[in-house]
């Protein structure tokens, strides 16, 4: 039950984009078309789940064991960068069609703060292995939901008449703000 709540909280209540501000760069960068947004979302879910598992083991088996927890920032970012590189090579070899679909987004994910963010959150909240994974799926699912919905809105904005100085990013941010208001409606729904 707790795990289901954790998952739903990640997707709706603590949505990474609209309440935690994690992963805004790809959110604004690749949300011009619904298909590319969905591709990015899937790639992020994939990498975040792997990163949750990898950083969990690195933290508990290496950093805690040698008493160097304060180096977690360096350790986590290296693990994530290596992981993304490895995933990219692995997918390229094993499934060229998936590589075609995800390829361009994978390198971008290293600097997606949602990945490092979820790893650090798991560590700070002391989640166990299963909870870490579920938290990762929830967070990444929320990211995917947000970016796909937002891409749908942006596709429509393209055809609208907007004031000159609001074209591009400003109107996108205002749109994101309005979506964020609607996500506020979920707050307080789930208490962990």
């Amino acid at each position, binding site marked *: 039950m707790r795990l289901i709540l954790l998952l739903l909280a990640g997707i709706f209540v603590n949505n990474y984009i*609209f*309440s*935690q*501000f*994690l*992963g*805004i*760069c790809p959110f*604004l*960068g690749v949300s011009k078309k619904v298909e590319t947004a969905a591709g990015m979302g899937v790639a992020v879910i994939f990498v975040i789940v792997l990163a949750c598992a990898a950083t969990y083991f690195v933290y508990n088996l290496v950093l805690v064991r040698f008493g160097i927890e*304060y*180096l*977690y*920032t*360096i350790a*986590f*970012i*290296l693990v994530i*960068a290596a992981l993304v590189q490895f995933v990219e090579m692995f997918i390229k070899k094993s499934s060229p069609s998936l590589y075609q679909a995800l390829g361009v987004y994978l390198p971008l994910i*290293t*600097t*997606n*703060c949602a*990945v*490092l*963010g979820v790893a*650090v*959150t798991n560590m*700070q909240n002391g989640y166990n292995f299963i909870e870490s994974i579920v938290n990762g799926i929830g967070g990444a699912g929320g990211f995917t939901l947000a970016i796909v919905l937002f891409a749908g809105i942006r596709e429509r904005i393209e055809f609208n008449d907007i*004031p000159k*100085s*609001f*074209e*591009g*990013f*400003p*109107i*996108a*941010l*205002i749109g*994101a*703000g*309005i979506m*964020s*208001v609607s*996500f*506020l409606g979920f707050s307080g729904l789930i208490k962990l």
Partner: protein
Amino acid sequence: MNKNLTVLRDGILFDNPVLIQVVGMCATLATSTSIINGAGMGFSTMAVLVGSNVVISLLRKFIPDTVRIPCFIVVIASFVTIVQLILQAYLPAINDALGLFIPLIVVNCIILARAEGFASKNNWIASLFDGLGNGLGFTAVLVIMGAVRELLGSGTILGMTIMPEAFPKTLLLIMAPGAFFTLGIFMAIFKKLAKKPVSEDEE
């Protein structure tokens, strides 16, 4: 020297990291709830940016081209850890307020973008000025946004109440949506005012 000042000015104004380059959005949106938080985040980022720019620029002849990104990230992450330990020791209140976003300076695109785009091609003095300029530009946006949101959202400046009791506080502004609205309006205003023709290349 003149060139360095141009680099400094461009970082603050015409190439402002937030308003023109549109990088480092996560930190901007999340920590501009008040002046103190904005300044804390801005100066922490600036410290990391200046440090990593200088070190990367000094090492640029020794770092092989193929593994440069991991090398940059290690340098940046080291500086972030240093800043984080300093904040924990001397400014615990700011450290608690910024929380997760201190370790996340590592993935702030501003820093990697300056390392890759500037420090790896220029000498260390120019890189120092580039770091200062971009850092100040980033801090300025955070502080101004923090001031607007703090004033309209809770009626205070630096924690002191300055609006009269009857002033309707726009609570929305210090919550998550307010960050998006404020930044969107700021960008629109800046676009209107910036003299140098702004190239319209949003990714």
